[in-house]
């Protein structure tokens, strides 16, 4: 049943369609620059996040899930990072405490990646210092 006239072009079209999301947008839009110059960050003496930036970029959602289970299910509210520095595990208070520019920081990248995290339906965004 192998009819090369139909199967091979069909396969090629299928592969083009399958990989469409990967090649269509290339070069059209650059990932957004994420500003980390909020007033709160500028007040810090040591401008460091909870964990190194590459880790945060790749795994902040896993970290937040871990925090969620630790706070809600284990009753532990404190996080000791790789260097032993302690932070309160709170999206609204700790993360957004420094990254108060949610639209330019969180939302910009999420919109670019087509991600709709539903944290914000419950976790309130602090008003003070919002840019």
């Amino acid at each position, binding site marked *: 049943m*192998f009819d090369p006239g139909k199967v091979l072009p069909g396969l090629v079209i299928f592969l083009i369609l399958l990989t469409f999301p990967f090649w269509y947008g290339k070069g059209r839009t650059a990932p957004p620059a994420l500003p980390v110059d909020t007033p709160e960050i500028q007040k810090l003496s040591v401008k460091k996040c909870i*964990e190194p930036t590459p880790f945060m970029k790749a795994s902040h959602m896993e970290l937040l899930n*871990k*925090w*969620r289970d*630790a706070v*809600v*299910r*284990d*009753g*532990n*509210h*404190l*996080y*000791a*990072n*790789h260097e032993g520095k*302690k932070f*309160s*595990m709170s999206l*609204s*208070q700790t993360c957004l405490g420094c990254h108060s520019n949610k639209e330019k920081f969180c939302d910009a990248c999420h919109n670019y990646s087509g991600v709709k995290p*539903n944290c914000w*339906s*419950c*976790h*309130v965004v*602090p*008003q003070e210092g919002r840019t």
Partner: protein
Amino acid sequence: MNFSRRVLLKIAGITLIGAGVRPALEALGAGESPKTLASPNRLAGKRWAMAIHTQKCPAGCRECIDACHREHNVPDFGNPKDEVKWIWNEPFKDVFPGQEHRYIDERLKEKPVLVLCNHCDNPPCVRVCPTQATFKRQEDGIVMMDYHRCIGCRFCIAGCPYGARSMNFRDPRPFIKKINFQFPTRTKGVVEKCNFCEERLARGLMPACVEACKEKALVFGDLENPASDIRKLLQAQLTLRRRPELGTKPQVYYII
């Protein structure tokens, strides 16, 4: 082509298994992870409980109710159908049905008594939850809600003999008068209730209702600590609990 379907399937299967090797190895070989810890200045207790001096509650007083609902972003939908409440007053005859009789003082029958989640030691709501979104904390006995996991099936509401739980039948955000930014809200489709202010206990603070009460009518403490006020109170007086015959072992004690 000398290539049977069976051979193709075998090769495809092995490839799929092989593709799973690296993720599996990575998961197993994950290195030392950072730690999550209990807050150092938390109030520690092994069995939190509350006692309520009902005689000390002034008529029409809502200090504790407002403090709790303000602190925890409890919405006010303005109608009894969608109502969400964590702590509120009910007449004595409804809180202790069967305890009132014909000759009881009319004022006592209608006397407002504070009701809230009893954080039972044998909670039926925990037993029935299909996702363990509501669970009993082994360390201190608080019956907690995990709003991330709740699927909104409302089996826990059916299971609660005290009517302590509320379902968010609508999005609560527009109905919160003044948002407390230190505490999350909930979203539509999940069940909520009093949490014995576990987030305040973690910061070394008493529950909001206890702190707000000007008459000091609410006593909160650790029953496993013989030196605690509540333990001494329970030993000194007879107290009533709601529907104790059901075996739920409620941990809110009423001094009438």
